[in-house]
């Protein structure tokens, strides 16, 4: 059943899932290669969790095929559960058990398991190891939930918004952990709302909305595919209207976001020269003038029409 080393760890073809009137997943296809960190991005209700839970064997697809580690996840989910690690979007823990007790409990479910101490250290819960889970903070609970996904030394880990509720330090330390897992050969499928997280971690991402995959590839590919231009940005100046700015040399598009004017251009020097010449006639300099490449956030805005985090 298990494929060769270069066979994908996840293969999704034409997956569909409907809840009554809602088409949560509408015919998506993608694959996750062995040893890569794959990100599913998308606004609330895009269908990320639904997709992930079908792959985990927790929900049945209505249509399409899903293979996880070479096993058909819709037909034989039990065969694959020993080999995958699962962190659900909502942490579910025994409230009256301590951190180590919960870890020990989950260890007993698997043929192979990591030492409890390794797990406790991996998510920095050393100081709280004897606390009952109902006494943990939201972020700590989330960390324990991630540790539970690693109990069985899985080949493939599913992390559904793993860093939600974590402070910046915990988030960075989780990123390190995920990168460490990859260096040990573990494949990771994660969903996130944080563009920075996707940019930092993911080898490839799929952007979903309304049950569709809108775009798929490396972050670099996604950005350059959509925005070959650079963005010239400055604090919006009164007296300069967008239509006029859009006619400056080489400017493809001009937008105003949060009090900032952004000009997408294929020739930064020409555009800035013309811009400064124009602002001089107003007798003012553009404040906070800068140049940047487009980011995943821009891709996202462009694709879905709204920011990832509302």
């Amino acid at each position: 059943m298990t494929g060769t080393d270069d066979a994908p760890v996840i293969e999704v073809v034409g997956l569909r899932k409907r809840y009554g009137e809602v088409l949560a997943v509408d015919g998506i296809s993608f694959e996750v290669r062995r040893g890569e960190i794959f990100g599913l991005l998308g606004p609330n209700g895009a269908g990320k969790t639904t997709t992930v839970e079908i792959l985990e064997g927790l929900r049945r697809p209505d249509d399409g095929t899903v293979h996880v580690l070479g096993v058909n996840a819709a037909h034989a989910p039990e065969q694959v559960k020993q080999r995958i690690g699962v962190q659900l979007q909502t942490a579910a823990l025994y409230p009256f058990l301590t951190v180590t007790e919960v870890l020990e409990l989950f260890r007993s479910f698997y043929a192979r398991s990591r030492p409890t101490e390794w797990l406790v250290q991996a998510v920095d819960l050393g100081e709280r190891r004897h606390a009952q889970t109902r006494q943990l903070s939201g972020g700590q609970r989330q960390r324990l939930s991630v540790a539970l996904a690693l109990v069985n030394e899985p080949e493939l880990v599913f992390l559904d918004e793993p860093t939600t509720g974590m402070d910046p330090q915990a988030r960075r330390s989780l990123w390190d952990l995920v990168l460490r897992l990859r260096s040990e050969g573990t494949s990771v499928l994660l969903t996130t709302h944080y563009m920075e997280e996707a940019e930092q971690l993911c080898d490839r991402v799929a952007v979903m909305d309304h049950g569709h995959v809108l775009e798929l590839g490396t972050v670099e590919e996604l950005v350059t595919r959509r925005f070959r231009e650079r963005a010239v940005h400055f604090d919006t100046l009164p007296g300069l209207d967008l239509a006029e700015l859009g006619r400056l040399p080489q400017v493809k598009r001009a937008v105003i976001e949060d009090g900032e004017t952004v000009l997408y251009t294929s020739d930064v020097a020409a555009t800035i020269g013309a811009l400064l010449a124009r602002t001089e006639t107003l007798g003012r300099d553009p404040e906070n003038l800068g140049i940047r490449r487009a980011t995943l956030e821009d891709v996202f805005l462009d694709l879905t029409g709204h920011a990832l985090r509302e």
Partner: protein
Amino acid sequence: MSAFLTLTAANIRSFVRDRTALFWTFAFPVIFILLFGAIFSGGGTPSYSIGWVDQDGTAASALLRDGFARVPLLKLQDGSLSASLDAMRKGSLNGVVVVPKGYGAAVAAARGSSAAGAGAGAAATTGPITAGPGTVPLDVYTDPSQQTSSATIRQVVAQVVSTTNLALLGGRPILATVDRSLQTQDLSNAAFLVPGILGMALMQLGVFGAVPLVAQREKLILKRLGATPLPRWTLVGSNVVLRLLIGIGQAVLILGIGVAVFGVTVLGALWLMVAIVVLGALTFISIGYVVASFARTEDAANGIVQVIQFPMMFLSGVFFPIEIMPSVLRPVAAVLPLTYLGDALRQVMVGGSPYAPLPLDLGILSAWFVVCLAISARFFRWE
């Protein structure tokens, strides 16, 4: 197996650490038993209802009745043998005394030869008075499971009989009332109550099991476990084992109080007791699973459980015999599983009079169990 044991240990830990659940599981039946035990035992001078069966119908037997009637501890009720025994089975009599045919003739004979029948008084300390040549056997029915009342009645009867014998032998009627202070409580209801409370506790344990189950589902713990290779039977099995252990704990506690505080004697075989406790617990656990199959939220489960357990508590003959219930409610009692669990426990524990034959009790419990098992297997949702 190691998963099963670890999970069961985890379940036990969770249960023990949840102080509120722990309190209600163990303190509630104890409070109940002490409260109702106290109410039913009442205060003041105890008295016992004795069925008086006079099969002789002579002046001598009337004289003997007179002697018994003077004992303030006893309330005599005349009747035929079968009617009196029936009344006793149903709990309205504490004992039955039978004066056999031929008593009058024997008295007349004894008066003739005043030397005969010596020592009859000394032998009169146990149950049916052993009859020798020339004596008349006086059958005394008591319920040995109701230790105190049984012992008291026998002692009083022995006293009256020996006094009567003495009077007969001495030729003078010395039927003075036996004025002896017996330090006893009226426990006639404790023996009835203890098995009932045990049944009630097992019912609550099982049915209320729906609440933590639904809570685990609501908190997505069941879903999370579903993502592990843990087989579902392990999960269910471990939950059931936890409930069974608690049930046995409750049984020990309740019986302990029954024996220590109320002097109830357990008559039946221990293995049979354990078997009935386990069957009863399983039946009500399966009802709990049915509730959990249909309740979506913890609050809903709690509500449904109350709707089930409250009427069952009062309509299943836990606190008073079904025979004295209004006749419109009796058909309800006849279908409730707690009726049969209480009845089975009562029969085996204290030898109480049966509502239904024991095999029928166990059969009906098993039927409830199988049906509920099938329903929950069909409708139980893990998420």
